[in-house]
């Protein structure tokens, strides 16, 4: 039994007042509402599940083609298709709240009021551990420029959500900015309890025979191992200024990839595109991290930001 306790504590981390039994979460948009992956992996072994982004009303999403594979990665332009916050609470939460893992709701809106309202409806829903704010969504009142690329706008969204809910708030940052440190400071000032980064990097691919963009929306978000070095760099930069925990995201396929982020300064990680490739990726990453911790006689807590000079 002692061994069991020790094993748990080695992997456990605390972020925004929440205890995670291990530092591996699944990223929003790559793991549905959890139940889809139940036949393929042991959901109870995950540190947490971040569900598909939720808006006030259901959204139909973009026309196809919505995805295209690129070298060691993929572009997507799903258009934030989702069931809407009310259906999520009624239809998806009953399954999720039974799982022995943290459930985090990713939210977005087109106005600050949208964000506030989605957050309010989720606050107090049984089984929900935290909110993750997706600030990469276009701000309709500001001509469609994403909240996540203007520090003052990001600040507005985060403080509005934070003042409306009791749930811990994680802000998911866009990498499509000049200096990630400015964004980290802005959302921390607004009261975020943690940051997660990076969201996808804007990209584009062209069919040269047809001279057409391969995505119907022409541009989309690049994810997968192709973006990992960029993500590690940004997590490391963020860690230089952050006073709150960082969750690292970007092309993690294996435990070794996850460890890069943790050593660079992340307290936990999210696995995204890898779920499509191997639905068991996140659980395998947990096992691999545990093996590493034993071999190095250390814990996740001691490993965070332990990059040597």
């Amino acid at each position, binding site marked *: 039994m002692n061994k069991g306790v020790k094993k748990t504590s080695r992997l456990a981390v605390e972020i925004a007042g929440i205890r995670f039994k291990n530092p591996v979460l699944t990223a929003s948009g790559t793991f549905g509402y959890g139940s889809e992956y139940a036949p393929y992996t042991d959901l109870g072994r995950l540190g947490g599940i971040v569900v598909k982004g939720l808006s006030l009303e259901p959204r139909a999403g973009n026309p196809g083609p919505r995805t295209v594979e690129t070298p060691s990665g993929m572009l997507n332009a799903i258009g934030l298709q989702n069931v809407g916050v009310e259906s999520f609470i009624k239809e998806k939460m009953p399954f999720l709240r039974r799982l022995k893992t943290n459930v985090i709701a990713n939210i977005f809106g087109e106005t600050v009021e949208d964000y506030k309202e989605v957050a309010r409806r989720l606050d107090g829903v049984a089984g929900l551990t935290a909110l993750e704010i997706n600030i990469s969504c276009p701000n309709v009142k500001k001509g469609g420029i994403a909240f996540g690329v203007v520090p003052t706008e990001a600040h507005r969204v985060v403080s509005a959500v934070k003042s409306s809910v009791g749930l811990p708030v994680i802000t998911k940052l866009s990498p499509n900015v000049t200096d990630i440190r400015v964004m980290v400071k802005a959302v921390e000032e607004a009261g975020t309890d943690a940051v997660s980064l990076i969201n996808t990097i804007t990209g584009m691919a062209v069919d040269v025979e047809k001279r057409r963009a391969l995505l119907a929306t022409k541009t989309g978000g690049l994810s997968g191992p192709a973006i990992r070095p960029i993500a590690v760099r940004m997590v490391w930069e963020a860690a230089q200024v952050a006073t709150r925990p960082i969750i690292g995201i970007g092309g993690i*396929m294996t435990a070794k990839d996850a460890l890069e982020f943790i050593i660079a300064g992340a307290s936990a990680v999210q696995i995204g595109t890898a779920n499509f490739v191997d639905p068991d990726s996140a659980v395998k990453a947990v096992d691999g991290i545990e093996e590493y911790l034993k071999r190095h006689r250390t814990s996740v807590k001691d490993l965070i930001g332990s990059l040597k000079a």
Partner: protein
Amino acid sequence: MEEKPKKILYNRQASAHYYRMGISWATPTIAPGQFVMVRVTDGLDPLLRRPFGIYNILGPKGKSRGTGIELLYKVVGKGTRILSTRKPGDDIDVIGPLGDGFPYPSGFRKVIMVAGGMGLVPLYLMAKELHGATLLFGARAREETVFIKDFRKFMRNVKVATEDGSYGRKGLVTELLEEEISSGSVIYACGPIGMLKQASAIARRADVKCFVSLERSMACGIGVCLGCAVKSRPHKGSGSGVYRMVCSDGPVFDSADIDWDSFNL
């Protein structure tokens, strides 16, 4: 989660660009028209799994659970090129069976299958169950007709059209469909979107039920990535159609439910 690894039984070149791959696997029940997601390599490029229609179930005849499956594929890009180099005895990572298959026809006077190119694949299991069906097959040229002999073994009504006239009739498979269609028929079709759009239009004019199996690029195959969206036709009372996922809502759809004008051909 661990289960017994699936292994490649054979990976044979059938002609220049075409292969047959057998995979040993104690399968669950497989419905005609279902597909699998195959990881062609452990490497990172190509990264994503590839969807393949299940061609045949290996094992005792007439059983929907098998001791393996057979896939047919054409080498068209990096993924299928790597697949063609895989060796018998190798483990292969396969998820499935996925999606809904073809609905079983009942009360129809005539079953017409329409296939374009590799669109033959998901029709084979259905064809085996329906001996009296007619198969109309279209291809660009003779070299693409290599698998038609499998169907001829048990089907009497097989008609082929090639665009260059090198095998069967010179022309398009949809021209054969115009000739074969009659009231009370049901159509099962799989092939390029342009062909399916034509077949759907022909079926609508003849007031005939038509089921199509669609192919779209997809990342997950299980309804999560939402990448393989196709637009459904607007229904009465609702302004616009909704998106349906080829992997989890299909791959088989009633052709009348698809907004064929939404495809950028």
